[in-house]
């Protein structure tokens, strides 16, 4: 698999570390890298192997790494025991709507912070950055009371609605990207009589597809994994997303290794696929928010 986990200026070889290594050094480097790889991948390998094993090999000792025959029975059992297909669908709905909300709200606010001048902009920006430090735990109780007063318990609204109101992290990421759009483009569009909204919609959004995609990916990972929101607000099993489904499934089936591993594998698979196909954007996002901040 070709992968590209290189930060932006990867072509630049830096003096100290990029100098040619002697062959024993190269050998040692590979050895360490491989050792780490084995350690990091063992849990995943074990998960996959367990999920595909016939029952008598699951609890065998020493561990049988390669099953004598591959059984998909465990996967089918997951669907027989719980409405797992429904969970997958629910997670998809929550993720897609969450992503749309995040992209919409955050990009509007980011455009304002990056390109429009108004009194108090810096103060608002600093306030926004400092809210990233506020733990969810402090706002949890009043937010829960608010949503239950609105009669939104056991609906997706409490989980989805806040996402449409500019999440600080995404707003920051997009703002950094919008700042880099050349001023000349903006001026040219203004002279042609483009309104601020036109500027945003016809120039900044199309130019920022990579940044928006980065937001979409982070947002996907967040929504796919989110446990706290569903845990607080959802009651009916048929509304559970995968994370919540597995959490409740786990308390009944804790002893059933193969079944749980099959469920975990299926929950992780979409993330794995997204990660492999979007690494470059993923990394770019981390770099933009982390280093250039």
């Amino acid at each position: 698999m070709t992968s590209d986990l290189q930060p932006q200026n990867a072509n630049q070889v830096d003096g100290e570390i990029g100098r040619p290594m002697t062959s024993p050094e190269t050998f040692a480097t590979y050895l360490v890298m491989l050792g780490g790889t084995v350690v990091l991948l063992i849990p995943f390998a074990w998960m996959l192997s367990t999920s595909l094993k016939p029952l008598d090999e699951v609890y065998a000792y020493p561990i049988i790494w390669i099953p004598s025959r591959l059984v998909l029975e465990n996967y089918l059992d997951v669907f027989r025991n719980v409405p797992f297909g429904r969970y997958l669908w629910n997670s998809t709905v929550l993720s897609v709507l969450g992503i749309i909300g995040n992209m919409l709200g955050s990009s509007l606010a980011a455009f304002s912070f990056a390109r429009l001048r108004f009194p108090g902009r810096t103060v608002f920006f600093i306030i926004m950055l400092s809210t990233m430090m506020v733990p969810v735990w402090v706002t949890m109780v009043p937010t829960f009371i608010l949503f239950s007063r609105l009669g939104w318990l056991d609906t997706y609204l409490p989980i989805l609605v806040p996402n449409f109101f500019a999440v600080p992290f995404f707003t920051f990421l997009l703002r950094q990207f919008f700042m880099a759009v050349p001023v000349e483009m903006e001026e040219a569009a203004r002279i042609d009589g483009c309104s601020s909204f036109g500027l945003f919609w016809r120039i900044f959004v199309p130019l920022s597809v990579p940044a928006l995609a980065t937001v979409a990916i982070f947002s996907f990972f967040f929504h796919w994994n989110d446990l706290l929101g569903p845990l607080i607000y959802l009651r009916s099993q048929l509304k559970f997303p995968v994370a919540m489904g597995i959490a409740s499934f786990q308390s009944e089936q804790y002893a059933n290794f193969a079944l749980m591993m099959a469920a975990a594998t299926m929950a992780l698979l979409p993330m794995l696929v997204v990660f492999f196909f979007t690494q470059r954007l993923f990394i770019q996002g981390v770099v933009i928010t982390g280093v250039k901040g």
Partner: protein
Amino acid sequence: MAILPATRRARREALEGYIFLLPWLIGFLLFTAGPLLASLYLGFTTYRGAGAPEWVGLANFVRLFTKDEIFWQSMKVTALYALGFLPPGMVLGFAIALLMNQNVKGVSVFRTIYYLPAVMTGVAVAVLWGFVFHREFGVLNSLLAFLNIEPISWLFDTQWVLVAFILMGLWGVGDGMIIYLAGLQGIPTELYDAASIDGAPRLRRFWNITIPMMSPTLFFVLVTALIRTFQIFTTAFIMTRGGPNYATYFFSLNIYFTTFQSLRFGYASAIAWMLFCLIFALTLILFRSAKWWVFYSGEKEEAT
């Protein structure tokens, strides 16, 4: 600061600025500032979700500090976890980034693999690790058996359970790697060249160039990791529910169970504010300490 913009165009732009900002402004008021103030108020009341909150003054906080052993326990285990995880996590994460910055073939494949556990988080991974730590059939004990180490009941032994959480945390240590790598590649090559010409040995170049130049990046990663570590929830909720005997009853679990199991909304708000104050104080200390060890090359030239 809030001077009215002079020209009509500027006024128009300001108005548009606020309109575009609305999603954030409304969200900030409804979901951050409002709840923040409300929970501060609730912290001084007893409230069980029905009727009106009853003002009790400092009673919640007095109780927290003087009578509530569970609160101190959750403070203790959260701090122990942070102390046990952050230092090795920082060192290991940086070491991995240095390793991944080597100019060898196929390094990008390794980078992907090392980053993978950091990306794969959440319930499924917590379930997986719950099994990894299983006493009889878990993969960790069966590997330790090769070293003739007796099986450890990781998640059911108060002595070992935090170690288990730290090990699991270290598995995802590739998290900071990408940021470090970007930082490492931003160090000007000339610095190393000059040092080589002056005959500075390798370790010295690392200590006097790499570390100071990387200190802002290290600082950033440390601050974000600290804020996150103090809020650990999902893994503990899935793997132990705070047990055994409150040994992993982290701050977040304490707040969660006080809210949704005991329905003591006022008391839970008081605990949540203590967590907020703790995180705030620690972050402040870190920022204060920055001037002693974080080197911003743009600001002052003193070392060179």
